[in-house]
């Protein structure tokens, strides 16, 4: 590739100052939220219009330059990490809210708009955008689509895929896919669902239409304290099973709740083996009725203490500890590694036990704070990167935790994506034919394989090597784990 020629062409496609090639200026783009993995980009383009996106892609296609789309760079699996010799296509300048349609309860926005900015822009109409990743202050809606991100309130209101109703996507070949719209269902293959969670490997999302929901007038947060993990897990299964879908249902184990309490002073009972935070919402009558029902249910399941927060101030206090959980645990050790497996709820106790055994075996402490209602675990592995070998230990422990999740019928990632981080665990979840099917789907959108190469889908070679190292009850390179 004639580098200077390509750079010239890119320069022509972009306004002054929107093509970055200075190493110092590119440093912020070296990594995403998974900071342990870095790579210097070849160049960074920051288009401000869709036309500029199109032109940049055309140059990259012609000269076979790999393209890594990037939103806010908060991803936790290395999805936006640059690839060698590749261009980072930063979408943060495409940050306009194009339309708020109150009658239809929709908003049409550019991909660089921050998640929270949508809710802020429509709050005056009593509406909001439901999926609320903890990173919502910073992360972009384009990144949310690419990761199919979730949040605390997704238990009741759904993930990104359930709340996005329209997309405009630009493929590397320059085609525009207009998917969905303001209505609910459109005929044809559900490319919109396919794009959700596709990690920037199929195309660049250039416009997103989301549905907006009415704010619930009444909210209550309950804190239920349990003296055993089993009883907390039992309460989770029961409340979900009885049709009292909480807006959010989070579990914290003793290590995490103590750290959070020390950090945030939220009023958590430090003697509890586990606590549940349960938010219920609805109109006034509904929320009240749910509250009564849930309190009784928690007591029947063995909660020895149930706090009920009704005022905004009390609710925020209870949530403060949960929100501070990651930084709080971060104070116990210099570094932590956040995992993201999802399991059937019935396996909660079994898997948490397994994690604590692994934790002992590896000699690394693991805290658990997670979206209990949908079985999405976030084990936090504590380690010290300055001590030799600890990163590798943490990664090994993480991999075994994910294998445990797959073993009980779960998945290696519930909401953070595969990126570059979970390529190897993917080999435990999919066999060669399935991986080849993924590859053919990729080819349908990106035959030149320039979009975010090397992410999300492991190569067969990689899995063969991995299979040689980890053999699950057989000597096949792709142990056919029972997943159904």
């Amino acid at each position, binding site marked *: 590739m004639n580098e200077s020629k390509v750079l010239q062409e890119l320069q022509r496609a972009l306004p002054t100052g929107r093509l970055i090639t200075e190493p110092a200026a590119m440093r912020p783009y070296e990594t995403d939220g998974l900071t342990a993995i870095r790579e210097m980009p070849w160049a960074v383009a920051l288009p401000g219009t869709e036309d500029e996106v199109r032109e940049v892609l055309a140059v990259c296609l012609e000269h076979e330059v790999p393209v890594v789309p990037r939103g806010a760079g908060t991803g936790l699996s290395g999805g936006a990490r640059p690839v060698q010799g590749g261009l980072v296509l930063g979408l943060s300048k495409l940050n306009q809210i194009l339309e708020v349609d109150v009658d239809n309860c*929709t908003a049409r926005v550019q991909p660089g708009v921050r998640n929270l900015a949508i809710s802020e822009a429509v709050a005056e109409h009593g509406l909001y955008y439901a999926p609320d990743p903890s990173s919502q202050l910073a992360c972009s809606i384009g990144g949310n689509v690419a990761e199919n991100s979730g949040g605390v309130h997704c238990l009741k209101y759904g993930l990104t895929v359930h709340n996005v109703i329209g997309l405009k996507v630009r493929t590397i070949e320059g085609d525009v896919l207009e998917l969905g*719209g303001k209505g609910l269902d459109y005929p044809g293959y559900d490319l919109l669902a*396919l794009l959700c969670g*596709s990690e920037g490997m199929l195309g660049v999302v250039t416009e997103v239409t989301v549905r907006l929901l009415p704010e619930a007038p009444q909210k209550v947060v309950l804190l239920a304290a349990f003296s055993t993990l089993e009883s907390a897990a039992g309460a989770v299964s029961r409340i979900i099973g009885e049709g009292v879908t909480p807006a959010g249902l989070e579990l914290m184990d003793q290590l995490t709740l103590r750290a959070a309490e020390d950090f945030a002073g939220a009023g958590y009972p430090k003697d509890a083996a586990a606590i549940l935070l349960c938010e219920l919402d609805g109109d006034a009558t*509904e929320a009240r009725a749910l509250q009564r029902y849930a309190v009784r249910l928690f007591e029947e399941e063995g909660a020895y203490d149930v706090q009920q927060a009704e005022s905004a101030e009390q609710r925020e206090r209870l949530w403060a500890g949960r929100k501070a959980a990651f930084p709080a645990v971060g104070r116990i050790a210099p570094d932590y590694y956040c995992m993201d497996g999802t399991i059937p709820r019935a396996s909660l106790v079994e898997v948490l036990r397994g994690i604590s055994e692994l934790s002992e075996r590896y000699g690394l402490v693991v805290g658990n704070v997670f979206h209990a209602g949908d079985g999405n675990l976030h084990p936090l592995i504590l380690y010290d990167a300055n001590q030799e070998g600890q990163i590798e230990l943490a990664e090994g422990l993480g991999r075994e935790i994910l294998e445990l999740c797959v073993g009980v019928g779960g998945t290696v*990632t519930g909401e953070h994506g595969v990126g570059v981080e979970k390529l190897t665990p993917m080999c435990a979840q999919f066999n060669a034919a399935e991986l080849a099917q993924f590859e053919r789907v990729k080819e349908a959108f990106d035959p030149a394989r320039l979009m975010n190469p090397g992410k999300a889908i492991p190569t067969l070679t990689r899995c063969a090597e991995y299979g040689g190292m980890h053999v699950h009850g057989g000597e096949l390179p792709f142990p056919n784990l029972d997943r159904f």
Partner: protein
Amino acid sequence: MAGDRAAQLVDAVRSAAADEQPLRLLGAGSKVPAAEAGHALQVDENRGVVDYQPEELVLTARGGTPLAEIQALLHQSRQQLPFEPPMIGGRGTLGGAVATGWSGPGRPWRGAVRDAVLGVEMINGLGERLTFGGQVMKNVAGYDLSRLQVGAWGSLGILLSISVRVTPEAHAERTCQLECAAAEALSRMRAWARAHSPITATCFEGGVLSARLSGMAESVAAAAERIGGEQVPDSTLWRDLRDRALPVFASQDGDGQRLWQIHCAPAAELPPDACLVEWSGARRWWRTDARVEDVRAYAEQAGGVALPAGAAPRFDSPHMARLKRAFDPQGLFNPHLNDAHPPQ
């Protein structure tokens, strides 16, 4: 295992591939009449519930399992399919419900068929058995190829088994009915959509606006008071609407009259003459003698699309054609659906 026909279906696909003989997949025949079939492959004998643990709120069943059987089983644990698939003439299979992707009256509140699909096991056009997704609520490992099967009408492969999220039945349910004009009905539906309430379905037809309320008994009662009108405890309306058994669905096309299904922006103006409105305005059933171009033009300015009721869509955009080839390179499955771009 009784009802497990996966091996036979794999064989059927492999010999079809060897003979270059396209297949028309047939379920219970509730949505696609058998007469339409060329080289038919009956897939509904692959049936039976594989796994159902009520406390997990997940059910896995083979594609040919009758919906009626699934619903009866779920009801024993006071659970239901959130997407309320139509059982036309009381028939229909889970595979057919997923393949057509037809969602029921609760679509805007309880989600679409694809929202409930967690995983599939399928046979692609290479005769390979593949599993995507799983039985858990959140899963972003690999592309979401299980949701992609929803609404694909079997053109990407045979659905051997499907895992779906199920939901508990409501603690209480009732229906409110008000008489009003069409425009007022739509504006009420939109007003309801903008406030939190236990509404889980709305429908306007023949001068009557109906709202289904589901939730805790107290809140259903309070919301019913607010909405007003006549209260009906056990309305059969929602079942008949779901199963397309209301009179508007029954009368035959003819005399230039045709029934259209229109998906559009929910607040968009209604068509000039009477139609059935549901999903808070986002789906409309319009029986009209208007010219096809006029119906399409109406749908387009309403931000949507019009389809003849009950018709299968065509998967003929360039990227859909490429996706088809990615799953089914020889064009074995229901190739008539991809006609515009026959696989090379």
